[in-house]
């Protein structure tokens, strides 16, 4: 098992955000966490990357405990979090944003080839390489956020709402890219409100509701599930 999350409890002050969440990821999978606003999807991701404090429960990454590891060391282990809302560094250029992605590696030669690979994957970013991140369009910013994540050579990529606020055609592009990244060997944990898109590329999925996992299973089975269809797929 690559990632194992057992009975996770997270609080924001008095608010009990995660009430005993458990899920697993196998090497090479795409796993989707779906659910409505406030279900605890993003919090689950932040717990894995140590961006929030875990009250109780365990996280194991390839058998090693992860709950007490500080965020910068989580990054060094190859778990890369791409936060929601296309969070890029707005006053840094595209190239500088990519440099920040490679922050933990600090290898100039590898950086040049990696950056070239990113520009191959995202040609729009090459055109905008010297522009500041804040001036990119929404889709370009999301691409930059993903590219920045890839610069760190992730083994496990945590993607938080990559479709948020983007036009459908751009969402299609982004999901093609995610599938492609997975094919090249990166395991992906995907958080999405757009359940349709997420389940269409995922191997397995978990449905979260108010801080609990209420359903889990193969992505195809979840798509067929009448409860999921009713609640998250618009009832068709």
């Amino acid at each position: 098992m690559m990632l194992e999350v057992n009975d996770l409890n997270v609080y924001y002050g008095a608010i009990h955000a995660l009430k005993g969440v458990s899920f697993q990821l196998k090497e090479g999978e795409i796993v989707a966490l779906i659910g409505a606003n406030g279900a605890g999807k993003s919090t689950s991701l932040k717990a894995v990357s140590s961006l929030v404090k875990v009250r109780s429960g365990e996280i194991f990454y390839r058998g090693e405990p992860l709950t007490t590891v500080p965020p910068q060391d989580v990054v060094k282990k190859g778990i890369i979090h791409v936060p929601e809302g296309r969070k890029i560094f707005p006053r840094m250029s595209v190239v500088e944003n990519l440099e920040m992605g490679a922050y933990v590696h600090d290898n100039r030669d590898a950086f040049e080839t990696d950056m070239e690979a990113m520009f191959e994957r995202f040609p729009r970013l090459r055109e905008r390489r010297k522009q500041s991140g804040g001036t990119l369009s929404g889709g370009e910013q999301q691409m930059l956020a993903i590219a920045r994540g890839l610069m760190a050579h992730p083994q496990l990529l945590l993607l938080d709402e990559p479709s948020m606020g983007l036009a459908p055609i751009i969402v299609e592009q982004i999901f093609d890219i995610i599938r492609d990244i997975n094919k090249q060997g990166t395991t992906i944990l995907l958080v999405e409100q757009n359940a349709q898109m997420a389940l269409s590329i995922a191997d397995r999925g978990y449905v979260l509701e108010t801080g609990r996992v209420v359903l889990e299973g193969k992505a195809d089975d979840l798509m067929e599930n009448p409860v999921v269809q009713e609640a998250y797929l618009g009832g068709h």
Partner: protein
Amino acid sequence: MKTSLQNSVRNGVVFGVVIVFLALIGFLVIAASLLQKMVGNPVGLTSMPSAASLLVFLGFLHLWNGWRVSHNKEDIDTNVPLKTRILRGLTAGVTTGLFLLVYALVVGTINERGVDMRVYLSMLSSQSIDFFLFNQSPLVGGLIQFGFSAAAAVVGAVLAKFADSGKDKVKSIQKAAVAWSDKSWLGKVKTNPYVSYVLIGVVLLLLVLVPRQWGAYWNYIMGTVGIYVLLGLGLNIIVGLSGQLVLGYVAFFAIGAYSFALVTAPDPHNLQFNFWIALVIAVLVSALSGVLIGLPILRLRGDYLAIVTLGFGEIIRILLKSDWLKDFTLGPRGLRNIAGPTLFGREFIGDIDFMYLIILAVLLALFIARRVQDSTVGRAWLAISQDETVAQATGVDTYKYKLLALAIGAAFAGLGGALFASRNQFTGPEDHVLMVSINVLCLVIVGGMGSIPGVVLGAFALKGLPEILRELESYRLLVFGALLVVMMILRPEGLWPAKRPNLEVKQPPPEPETDTRPAAIGGGS
């Protein structure tokens, strides 16, 4: 046509109000005296400046009035006919003139009745009113002002016409000059790498020679500017680079000054350490205090951090003043007889020596600030200042780098504080009030956040300028405030904004994408 005349009237009203205001507070007399002093004919203590100097000063304002309205934003090009311009200038000038006429009649009549206006407006003496009226009766004086205002504004409007038609010619001459200089030896000089070394050499030479010529007064003023450059460089690292809004920066200044004072002064501890050892101690203690204070409070962000640090600055000052620490810091009395610098057993306390010391400290701080900013540390700070969570997600140890920023910033403040205490040979709690924090923050903002040359310019503007403006006596703060307003309008990002080398000029995003999420998401409702 209608709007442009409205614009002229509005402009005239503004100038009228401003000139009346300047007359009421007695500034016209000061301005005229200064003008006269500049042409080498200073005014005696009891007499008034000449009418000519008043006309020159007002003339400039009226010309500006006409110049402004002669060509305004609504015009598509600069090709406005002369007739229109004269009409606009006349309108503005007459409007302003009416204000001056009414003012002259009202104030002049009151003055003639023998009422002493100084009871209400301390600078409005009978003499200064007569001065405004050119020693004529209110009506005649007012009409002179009125006529002069209208005439000068028309001249200003006509001048603007010539300036506009001359603009294109000037531009083409400029272009030719630049092209010529690039081709000739000047171009070679510009691209020669040794030129910057020569420039640095010249600056260093000036820094060595100028303090010898200045005299004690200017050395003192410039020394203060230097100390504020140190403080500004430190706060610039904390606020400008790492983006942590710390409002109690004076605390580190106080800790530097006091730790230096406590180990060198004969009273109360009689340690009498050597100057240089004490200096190092002061810097280290300040840096350490930065870390200690940072450990708990750097978990806070934004407004909360600002409030907590604001309180911290005051706590330090109140502690230094308190009865509780009286045996240790001597309370409100402060510490006296703080050591001056020594070198190889020789004391050098003179103002020139101390100026050199401050210049050295500033150069050292500039060097360190520059090197740190350009390193990976600087990049980590830049990331933290833009988005702390994302910085964390890319693997930056945000807590460590924020602590480092606070430690370096505090060390700079400590150095400044130690030099400050040593120069004055005294320091007390009232040297370390909240205003110091605010002044330093202001100079960082005025100079341009995150910009090192900006800090230097800001320190000169905020600490040096008020001294230069001392000629204006009690109007110093008025003019200073006006200059700050003008500065912020003309250069809102600071005098010398931080430049990001590999960033192109901002462009608007080419393809706006709207929030068109697929319909499937909201399906649950």
